[in-house]
């Protein structure tokens, strides 16, 4: 070690170089304004904004969050001020920050996504886009994250529109996340992030009903999903060559290291920030300390694992 900070920067391609591999996950850091008051977000690798839609959205009725064992469910419903506000009011602020800001874009129709991106193209301070194709049915739109062909069409159209970095946030609520990853990579995505939340439900014994409104389901995040996120990242890593950003239940630097062993090039810290606003910084500091060991590339690390007797293809369960 040379004594200075090891260089932890991660080049994700097409101009998006993260100063370090630790970002704040979409929807858990708003647009950065609140967290800036609490922590030094400029030290972080990236800020992924709240999912932003073409028009302002008031979000879902309460209750929108519910805690479960080792995690939380949310049903925020993409509460956001709309792209115009983000582009006109927030983006000029982003331009003054040194943390790269990646705008998470969500939408109903392909046109909604594209209009949203087009408006952002003119805005300063945006380091790239994270296409949230794992957002649920709104306005009867289809769920691109669950349909590889539809996802590819969306990404191809977005690709044609922007030369900024295009990351795609994958849904884990699919039969084969690798298929979707391959489809969006083929369509021109520069990187993928995995995973978004898992569809879960909390049932309250007192009211004898689900806690969250509507269908009663919400997105599960937090430590409970870490094993699922790790499996998804490993699967995606094996399927595509583009960078993979790991997210799901990262609470400390050790969790981040696990994601990197599973194949992630960078990570996002989500729910942990609610528990401790400084969680992402703590992850970063922990990674710095572990940096010498970080070099092991995912594939190599996986090869270092247990090798079953030839001919045995282990089953995933049962």
């Amino acid at each position, binding site marked *: 070690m040379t004594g200075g900070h090891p260089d932890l920067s991660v080049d994700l391609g097409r101009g998006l170089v993260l100063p370090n591999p630790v970002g704040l996950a979409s929807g858990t850091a708003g647009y950065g304004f609140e967290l800036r008051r609490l922590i030094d977000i400029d030290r972080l690798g990236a800020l992924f904004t709240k999912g932003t839609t073409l028009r302002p959205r008031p979000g879902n009725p*309460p209750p929108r969050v519910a*805690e479960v064992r*080792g995690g939380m469910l*949310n049903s925020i419903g993409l509460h956001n*001020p709309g792209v115009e506000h983000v582009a006109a009011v927030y983006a000029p602020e982003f331009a003054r920050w040194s943390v790269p800001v990646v705008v998470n874009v969500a939408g109903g129709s392909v046109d909604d996504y594209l209009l949203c991106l087009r408006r952002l193209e003119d805005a300063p301070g945006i380091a790239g886009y994270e296409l949230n194709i794992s957002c649920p049915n709104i306005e009867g739109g289809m769920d691109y994250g669950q349909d590889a062909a539809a996802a590819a069409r969306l990404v191809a159209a977005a690709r044609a529109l922007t030369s900024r970095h295009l990351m795609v946030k994958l849904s884990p609520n699919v039969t084969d996340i690798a298929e979707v990853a391959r489809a969006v990579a083929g369509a021109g995505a520069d990187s993928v992030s995995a995973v978004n939340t898992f569809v879960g439900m909390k049932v309250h014994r007192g009211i004898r009903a689900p806690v969250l409104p509507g269908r009663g389901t919400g997105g599960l995040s937090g430590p409970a999903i870490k094993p699922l996120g790790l499996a998804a990242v490993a699967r995606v890593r094996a399927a595509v060559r583009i960078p993979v950003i790991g997210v799901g239940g990262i609470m400390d630097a050790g969790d981040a290291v696990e994601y990197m062993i599973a194949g992630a090039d960078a990570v996002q810290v989500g729910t942990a920030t609610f528990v401790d606003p400084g969680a992402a910084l703590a992850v970063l500091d922990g990674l710095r300390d572990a940096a010498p060991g970080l070099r092991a590339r995912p594939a190599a690390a996986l090869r270092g694992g247990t090798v079953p007797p030839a001919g045995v293809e282990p089953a995933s369960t049962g």
Partner: protein
Amino acid sequence: MTGPPGTELLSDLGRARDEVGEVLEVQLLGGGLVEITARLPHLAATARPGEFAQLRAWQGVEPLLRRPFSVAWTEGDRCAFVLEAVGSGTRMLVALRPGDALRSLGPLGNGFGFDPCPARALVVSGGLGCAPFPLLVRALRRAGCPDVTVLSGAATGARLYPAERFRRGDGGVAVLEATDDGSRGHRGRVTDLVASRCDAATIVYACGPNVMLAALASTLAGLAGPPRRAEVSLEAPMGCGFGTCLGCALPVVAGGGPDAPREHGTAWALCCRSGPVMEVSRVAWPELLALPPAHVA
């Protein structure tokens, strides 16, 4: 603060800080109420009445999230919280012993308004809704409010927050009590006591269960002479407490106007940012009452 999502002012997070304090005292007040005093210098120095802190006093992820509590009072570098063991988080908190660590992120949210100071302050407390009021009562008196009356209600006498703790030695503060079972003070709802004590110079401050606050709202709406202002402190399940998860939405009356578009009839405001204190007229009471109780999440 009533604009469309994203145009809401950011709450004043400039004062919020994450600090690890030390528990000094855990007092059982009777009826299940517990008052925890902790050395939390930053919170003690900066919290304003009605503001809250996100507390955590455990390692690991059971429970995962911090829990929000009103700052009950401050004294030097000490802060107090009043609570009851209702779930996993509060059970951990009431089990704390002197010397244990207590982590606080705060102060958070907005507080009660008392500038300019009202000529009369009517403080309406229901059950654990007492929590923010010792601090408010003191602040009102310090700001020069000559007439501070606390209406303190609970299910039974045992569950009444002790009158002396509202006053904190200030003989100029009146405390009137009400209990559902009549075991102490007025038999009936604490809101019954409001009408006769309210005039145009009064500001009403209230905290308690949603049904109580809704009853208060309709009492006030029915008054011939309404108070100058009425503020209620509300609860919502919280993810973060500092405005980034957007989880703590409460139903408020839509702002209206072309610059405040609404996709649906009801608008939402964040409890941790536009609250927990809101003007009574801002709250969409029917929608609030239609929700499951705050503690159901």
